[in-house]
């Protein structure tokens, strides 16, 4: 999913899939696993109906290695 225009990075958690989800400045959503260098292992988010994204404070971005 892409949203036009630059946006602030946002972090979410999907409790169903138990994964971090990151929206980058381009509006792209990524799943980020709980590994070393997590951002390097990101995958495009595959939206599913049962997903419920819950906002996570922005300061967690460094834990996930998000470079923005």
């Amino acid at each position, binding site marked *: 999913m892409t949203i036009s225009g630059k946006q602030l990075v946002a972090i979410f958690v999907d409790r169903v899939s*138990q994964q971090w989800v990151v929206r980058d400045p381009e509006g792209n959503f990524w799943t980020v696993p*709980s590994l070393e260098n997590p951002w390097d292992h990101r995958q495009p988010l595959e939206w599913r109906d049962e997903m419920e994204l819950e*906002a996570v404070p922005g300061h967690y971005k460094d834990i996930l290695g998000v470079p923005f």
Partner: protein
Amino acid sequence: MSAEYDRLEETRERSVPWKKWGPYLSERQWGTVREDYSEGGDAWNYFTHDQARSRAYRWGEDGLAGISDDKQRLCFALALWNGKDPILKERLFGLTNSESNHGEDVKEYYFYLDSTPTHSYMKYLYKYPQSAFPYANLVETSRRRSRQEFEYELLDTGAFDNDRYFDVFVEYAKSSPEDVLVRITVHNRGPEAAELHVLPTLWFRNEWSWHATGDRPALKLVSAGQPVNVVRASDPVLGERYLYCDGDATLLFTENETNTLRIFGVANRSPYVKDSINDHVVNGREGVVNPEKKGTKAAAHYRVTVKPGESQIIRLRFTDAAPVSFAKANGEPAGPFGLRFDEIVRSRREDADAFYASITPPSLSADAANVLRQALAGMLWSKQFYHYDVDKWLEERGSDPFKLARKASPRNDRWHHMYNGDVVSMPDKWEYPWYAAWDLAFHVLALTLVDPDFGKQQLKLMLRERYMHPNGQIPAYEWNFGDVNPPVHAWATIFTYRLEKAQNGEGDREWLKSCFQKLLMNFTWWVNRKDRSGRNVFEGGFLGLDNIGVFDRSAPLPTGGYLEQADGTAWMALFCQNMLEIAAELAMTDPDYADMALKFCEHFLWIAAAIGNVGGDTGMWDEEDGFYYDVLRLPDGRSQRLKVRSMVGLLPLCATTVFEGGVIAKYPEIGQRFQWFLQARPELRAAIHDPAKTNWAGRRLASILDETKLRRVLAKMLDENEFLSNYGIRSLSRFHADHPFVMHVGSQEYRVAYLPAESDTGMFGGNSNWRGPIWMPVNGLIIRALLQYHTYYGDDFKVECPTGSGRQMNLFQVAEEIARRLSNIFLRDKNGRRPVYGGSEKFQQDPNWRDCLLFYEYFHGDNGAGLGASHQTGWTGIVARLLHLFATLKSEDLCAGKIAYFEKQARATGVAAPTGG
């Protein structure tokens, strides 16, 4: 003279960091605005007590009886476990605003027993039940109770029945600024032997997770086993520190990192997370503490079994001295815990005794001396490292103040200039673990008894560019920095300056000047923002008095229109007087300020006259009642006084200051301009006390109330059926018990009745009440005013006190009488009972409880029982200043002028008074 004075001087003169380590850990970091990243700003429910053990904090740390450095990089505190609780007792438990019938409330018993101003000696007491802590019972029972019922307290649960609890005393004693000795004494007050797990815990505040720096601090066990375990703490800024743990303990290590599985449902990258020590000790979980004995959070796990009536001691030492230095330097037989350890603790305790002996007037009883000492200890323990970078916080919420289409923040998005990261005096480190600007000004009045340097630093801090808004507003508090608090900063500033001047022989004029410049901005902010009509009549909303009005004064009025506030205008009159005092002082050596003195003199007259004149027949003064009221101005042009007899109407009495005439004597031209102004505007003088009138000593009085009005207001204030209680001046007249003020707007009834205890509404969170109880800060202001009037009118001005009693008193005696009643809240009465503890027999009778004092937020209007926040030593600590003041100052002293008070105070605190001041 106590060695503590030397430490204060070394801190001031040579920057020896005696204050680097102190009680700067909060009692509650969860449930605060700064940790709240919820969409709607629901701070209490976003980051809960239940999460706190598992979730790393962003901005600060909390703990039990804890200390940290002044930037809170490294923290030390106590954790306890009685073997029955579901979690370690790592932090104090309390109810959130919505869980309790009277708002948030800590449900624990802990006491700040002692502290010196450099924290070279501190003592804290925590009372821990041996039975399972009744977490659920407290929540469920409190939720069921109505606002008309009392709060449900921990004692009510039976947790202390049969004295089955531990008294855990924690003492800190500094051998040097970087060498802190810790002594934990566990008493078993119960009838049977009982085991307690004691876990002194050392940890780093988590900064590394949020900044992506490679500078991660580390804790590591460097020496294990009997008799001493040693943990080394390495930090890129602090350098190396060591925690020496005496005796038999198991060292447990983990990381101060969020348990993401528990909080967010996502697997942890490491098994070592914030709550690992809890899970290991309480639940016996394997594999959750690091077997390599390293991490960012470590605890020494002691298990002590204490026989009934006996005690056991655990000793630790937190220092920059490496093990090798103990081995070869001191020649002690047993390293850090040799004979010297107990000597040092004893010596620091004796220093503290000597320090308090030097500031305690000899005429005070032992009981009063204990009240004074614990009040000041509480104020010193209430220092906290307060960290909040608002711009960063907004960014982390996804809000950008410079983008029009930004995501809205529920609060504070116009305060993005703010970067706070300092040790600040808190109102109450559990219930109000954030600074409140007007509280802080009151704190300083008492703190300057023991540490004038800290008082000055605190006042200046609020005026710094990292705190004060660019537009000149002083931040109120984190729930809404833009709220409007009474402007008392200038008063605390001139008070502190005069005190230091009396103590040192000269004041810190540079400090006063720099404060004056910033206060000038703040004054201008008030004038430009809060005087709607430009007629020198001020609004300001609730102005710190929460539910005192018939309407919420911070919200749009249900009637439409607006309020002209007697208190808002009186506060500004006092602000003017204080600015005039500062300008007059500075003008003694700098002529530029003489003009400013005249400016504030005239501005005071405009404001005072506005209170007297504005509104014609519906001004704030009610001639029939002899009292001041808020005036409601309706959209259709009609007006009405809201005839609620409250503290709002007493505040005009507080806006009074005596002037000695120094500026006019030094600058005759200023005097001539002032005379011209007075002659040109006789209508200004007509409505207030005539400022041209000098008394026998050539003094002038700036006062809204002339003598006639003063006598009429005092008659109400000193009437025991109205404001005067046995324990001070009530916030609302008792008259309204039988005569509630009622107003109908449409079908809605608005009512104000006398409520001597807790609030019965949810207005302002429902956890405070200005409709009857006694509040220490405004009583302090009233006492100040009475002393000003006395300095002007002298001994011959007498009033009946209490009204109707036939007893005539001068105003010094009236002030002393009010202070005596306020002090009686805390002192034992003839039956040995302390009114502050009301009907709590445990506190009244038990020798292990009755001399441990709590300084509540406010007090029952009829019986003096403590209400609201239980550790608000902050402004309630003013009682220490009152005890000191009336034990050292006599009525005749004030005949020599009000500066005599400061000189007497200087002598009474053991510091030489000036010869030429």
